[in-house]
Each structure stands twice: as C-alpha cells, then as structure tokens.
C-alpha cells in the first residue's frame, strides 16, 4: 500500500500541473524512507550551533533577571512596584495571564480539533503546536501567582483539609480559574506526552549517553506491539475528544473572571465565546509564527513544515479573524445599544480616551491587516509577510486584553474614582521575562523532544493516495483505524 503513495509516474503534463504540485505538497506525497525521516528529526534535535547556545544563554539570563529577579524583588517589597493603583487594580499581570492562556489554545486546537475532524495537513506540526500549549500554560500559570499580593499563601486556593477548617470559595471565578488551568495544564501535558511515546522510543534507539538514559526512562519501554498501539490509539481518542471541551472551558472561565463581575464593560454574556475566538486567533497566529521560525532555524524542518501548511493555517486565521470581528462587533453593538450610561462612557473612552491608540492598533492588527493580506494565496505563502501578520495579530490580541482590563477598569461608575494606568518598568520587565521563559523552554525542548511526530507523518503518508480521475489526480484519504 505504501507503494501507491509515490507520485504516479509518467503523469501527463497538464496546464494544471501547479495545482497538482500543491496537492502533492499538501499531504506530503513525496515520502522519504522512514530511516531518513528519523535521521532528519534526530539530526534537528541533536544539532546545535554556537549561535543556538548563545541565544539560549541570553534567554536564560534574561529569564533569570527580568522574570525571577524582578519577581523576587516584588515579593520582598510589595506589589506596589507595579503601576497598579486604584481603580486599576488589575494591570498587565492579568493581561499577560489572559494572553498566555490564549496562546495555549493553539496546540489543542491544532492537535485535537483538527485530529478529530481528520484535517490531514495537521500531522507534521502537531508536536510544535502542543509544545506551545504546554509552555504557553507554563508561562501563563505564572501570572496568577505573580499577580497575588501574598503569593506565599497561594496554596489557600487549593482544596485540602486544614487546621483552619476553611476550604476555598467554590463560588469564586478565581477558584474555577485555578481548577481549569490546573486541569488544562495537566491534560495538555499528558496529551503532549502520549503521542510522543513512539517518538521517544525512536530517539531511545538512536542515542547514546545521557540522552539514551532519559529517553529510555521516558519511553516507558515502548516496543510498538499491537497492544501498545491499540492502547495509545484509544487513549489519544479519549483525550482528543475530552480535551476540546476542557480547552473551551478554560478560556470561558478566564472570560468569566470579567463577565461575572458587575463592572461596567465586563458584564457581557458574549465574553465566553468572544474570548475563545480571540484565544484561538492568537494561538493559531503564534503557531504560524513558530512554524516559520522553526522552518528557518531548525535543521531539516523545511521537509516537514511547508508553505502549504502555513497557507492552510493562513486560511484558518482569516476565518478566525472574521469570527473575532463578528464577536467584537456583537459585543460592542449590544453594549452600546443597551444604553447603560457607564457602558456607553466606557465605549467612548476606549475609542477616544488618552489610550485610544491601543484600541485602533487592536482593530488594525486583528481585522484590517489580516483581511487585506490573508485572502491572497500568494501572500499566505510568503513566510516573512506571514511572520509580520501573525506577530501583528498577537500584538492586537494583547491590546484587546489591555483594552478590556486596565482601560475599562479605569472608567467605572464613580466618576470621582476614574483613573488611568501606565505600566511601570518592573511590570514590563516581568511581561518580557515571561516571553523569554517561553522562548527558552521552547528552544530547550526543540533540542530534546522530537519536533515532528514521525509516526504520525508516516501514518498519514500511508493513508493518502493520489487517485486518477479523468485527466487529473485527486488526493484521497483512507481511514486507518
């Protein structure tokens, strides 16, 4: 069966050759032997240049100083070194929390939703996206802690029997948040690990020294027996289906942090889906950003990650950008039409207050630029342009959260207590530090975890066939299970 995967020889040259070529590329109809793919992946993993170590070193120092150093200083002096003040009790700590939790939606979206719906183009980059989920959550889960006034007693949010007879308040959205983020972090980490088992076994068989010891431990003695594959398939199926509602619940609950409050501009029933769409928009953009960077910097990745994938994700991005605009407009329209005095003043404040430029940059990056560029196949296949567009979308999404959190908070019901918020240096340093942490973790993982699920790619290549229909060929995908 694998033989049929190969391109049909002597295909009649037709004016549609370019389209055919795309098809081939789309589902990777140019299979290479498994050994070669393994070798390519192992190579990308073990190959390090001095430049890589310099970047890692710089990132490590930056993380240590900008994130942990400043955080430690803040713990010892007080949260006051941030720019927060009455009435802006939440600033970019919470903005960053929402941002990173949003980023973490990408992996699950790519590898669970696309897996369940059998979108075949997902195969080569599921791992890259799942890693983003895990590390995005690792960076995001820091923020609720950084943001606490007394972080050393954060464990009071954990339900456990104690000498105080007190349990957490399960009516508080922050406890839901805590539970949801914990659930999502654990399940997405496991969901990263399960499909990794065969690849870890592959790495185990091809390494020596400390790597071998670690892979041997992590691969759990994977041999590839029928029972093991069967079990893995069952577990992945359970995960793929169960993790989707968990993913939706996480960002819905994050949105409820705002929506359940009576605060003007927050109390909106549409916040749940609006936040989810925003999260997927920023997450998928981040996936594209990372894929472009991986393709450019990681060895052998141009075979696995192709312009076709970026093209396909670009189409998704256009759809999500439109969906985001729809939800944004819906939220705006209903709030504005409702005519509540406080909400109307907030909406006016967003668009014409001293921070209005943030609101306009948000609309520019999230709507205008994607709509103007992503419709074009040619532009979608231009990596540097896609890099700019996707980075722009993430800037726009950051600004969206910034508009919703500190700017809205500054303009509430008591006009005497209106205020503005400007982040101070320590906060900005922490925000940059978490970005450094994310990049550092990702870079380290890229040299430790096989970045391409070779067995999934192989499985895909076996499932795909080119079928001749009349004068052209069409791809067909068979069910493997």
């Amino acid at each position, binding site marked *: *069966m*694998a*033989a049929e995967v190969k391109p049909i020889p002597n295909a009649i040259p037709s004016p549609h050759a370019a389209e055919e070529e795309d098809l081939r590329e789309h589902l990777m109809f140019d299979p290479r*032997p*498994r*050994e070669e793919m*393994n070798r390519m992946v192992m190579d990308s993993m073990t190959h390090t240049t001095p430049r890589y170590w310099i970047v890692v070193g710089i990132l490590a120092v930056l993380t240590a100083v900008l994130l942990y150093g400043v955080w430690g200083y803040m713990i010892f002096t007080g949260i006051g070194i941030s720019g927060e003040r009455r009435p802006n009790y939440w600033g970019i700590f919470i903005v960053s929390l929402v941002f990173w939790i949003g980023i973490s939606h990408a992996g699950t979206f790519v590898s669970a939703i696309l897996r369940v719906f059998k979108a075949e183009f997902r195969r080569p980059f599921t791992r890259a996206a799942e890693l983003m989920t895990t590390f995005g959550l690792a960076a995001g889960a820091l923020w609720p802690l950084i943001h606490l006034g007394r972080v050393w007693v954060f464990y009071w949010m954990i*339900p456990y029997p104690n000498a105080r*007879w*007190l*349990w957490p*308040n*399960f*009516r508080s959205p922050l*406890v*839901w948040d805590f*539970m*949801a983020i*914990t*659930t999502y972090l*654990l*399940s997405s980490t*496991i969901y990263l*690990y*399960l499909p990794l*088992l*065969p690849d870890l*076994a*592959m790495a*185990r*068989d*091809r390494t020596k020294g400390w790597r071998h010891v670690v892979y*041997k431990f992590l*691969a*759990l*003695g994977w*041999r*590839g*027996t*029928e*029972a*093991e*594959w*069967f*079990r*893995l*398939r*069952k*577990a992945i199926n*359970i*995960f793929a289906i*169960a993790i989707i*509602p968990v993913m939706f*619940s996480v960002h819905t609950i994050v949105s409820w942090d705002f929506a359940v409050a009576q605060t003007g501009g927050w109390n909106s029933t549409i916040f749940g889906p609006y936040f989810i769409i925003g999260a997927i928009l920023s997450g998928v953009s981040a996936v594209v950003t990372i894929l472009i960077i991986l393709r450019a910097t990681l060895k052998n990745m141009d075979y696995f990650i192709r312009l076709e994938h970026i093209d396909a994700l670009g189409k998704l991005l256009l759809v999500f950008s439109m969906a985001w605009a729809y939800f944004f407009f819906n939220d705006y329209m209903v709030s504005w039409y409702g005519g509540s005095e406080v909400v109307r003043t907030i909406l006016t404040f967003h668009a014409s207050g001293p921070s209005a430029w943030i609101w306009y940059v948000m609309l520019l990056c999230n709507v205008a630029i994607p709509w103007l560029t992503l419709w074009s196949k040619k532009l979608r296949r231009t990596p540097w342009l896609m890099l700019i567009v996707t980075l722009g979308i993430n800037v726009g999404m950051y600004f969206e959260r910034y508009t919703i959190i500190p700017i809205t908070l500054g303009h509430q019901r008591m006009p005497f207590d209106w205020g503005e918020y400007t982040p101070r240096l320590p906060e900005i340093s922490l925000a940059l530090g978490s970005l450094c942490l994310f990049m550092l973790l990702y870079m380290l993982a890229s040299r430790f975890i096989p970045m391409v699920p070779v*067995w999934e790619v*192989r*499985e895909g290549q*076996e499932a795909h066939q080119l079928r001749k229909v009349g004068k052209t060929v069409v791809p067909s995908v068979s069910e*493997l*299970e």
Partner: protein
Amino acid sequence: MATSVVHMALFKEEQLDEAAEAIQVLRNLGISDKDISVISGTPFSEKMLGRPMAWTSIPLIGGAGAVVGFLVSVFLNFGTPLLYPIQVGGMGLQTIPTSIVLTFELTMLGLLISTFIGVLVETISPSYGPRGYDARVTDGQIAVLFSSGAELDASLHDALSHLGAEIVHGAEDKKLWP
C-alpha cells in the same frame, strides 16, 4: 514454553502484506496466536494484520476516574460549604450554577488523568507473548515475533524467507525500561 526460543521475522515497511501473510503461515504451522506478537513503528491495526482483537481497560479506568472526579466535585461543591458555613454576597451556601463549573473541571480531570494512569499502568505491567526487540522497528520495520521449539526451524525458515523476511534467531529481550 520453557524450551522454546523467540524468533523474529523482520519485514520492510512496505511489506505489510507479506507480514500479514507470515502470521497466517505461522498459524498454519501450528503456532497459536498468543505465541505470536507483532511490533511495528507505525500503528497497524489488528484488522490489517489479521490478528485477534486487542483488549484494553483504558476506557474503563478513564470512566472510573471520571466518576471519582465527579464525586470529589460533589463533595467540594456541596459538602465543604456545610463544614464551615460562610455567607457571601447573599448567595446560597450551595449554589447549583457555580457548582457546574467545578463539577465539569474535576470530572474531566479525573477522566484524563486516569486515562493516562491507565496507559502508564498497562504499559509498564508485564505483558504476555513472546518478547524481543530490534531497533530497526522504529525505522518502520515490522517484526513478527514468535516462539517455537527448535525443531520447527527449518520449515519456518523456508516459509518466512520466501516471503522476504529477515530472520533473527533467538531474539534477545532487551531491558527497555528500568
């Protein structure tokens, strides 16, 4: 069984049909299905290889975990407020809308974690059938392992090499996990 040796017939990745054939040959030569096992680098379902259905208790373990998670959430939502009743914001002590959130999260957490524990336990618990391993499997090769006495060797060897298999006699069982 004590005297039998584990042999391994290695097939190239594209020789799936031959591998399936080889299993049939082994069966015809009187080796029962439980003395055969197939290891591969790509997921082939038992249907493809014409093998008996594998069985797993992972959905069961996952379901049990979900039930445990549900019960824990019921205790946290409806039990803990009674242990020390604290009024907040004019809400009742046990509120159903807020309890749904936690119930969902903890049920899912129970389901997903126990599914993983199921995989972990089943993977590291001892398995039956012939054991053996070859690193070429992760290169996509298909290894058909079978245990048989030494006297069957000649006929087996012929049949299997006819199918294009590379035969490893007395495949060693490497210790793959500490």
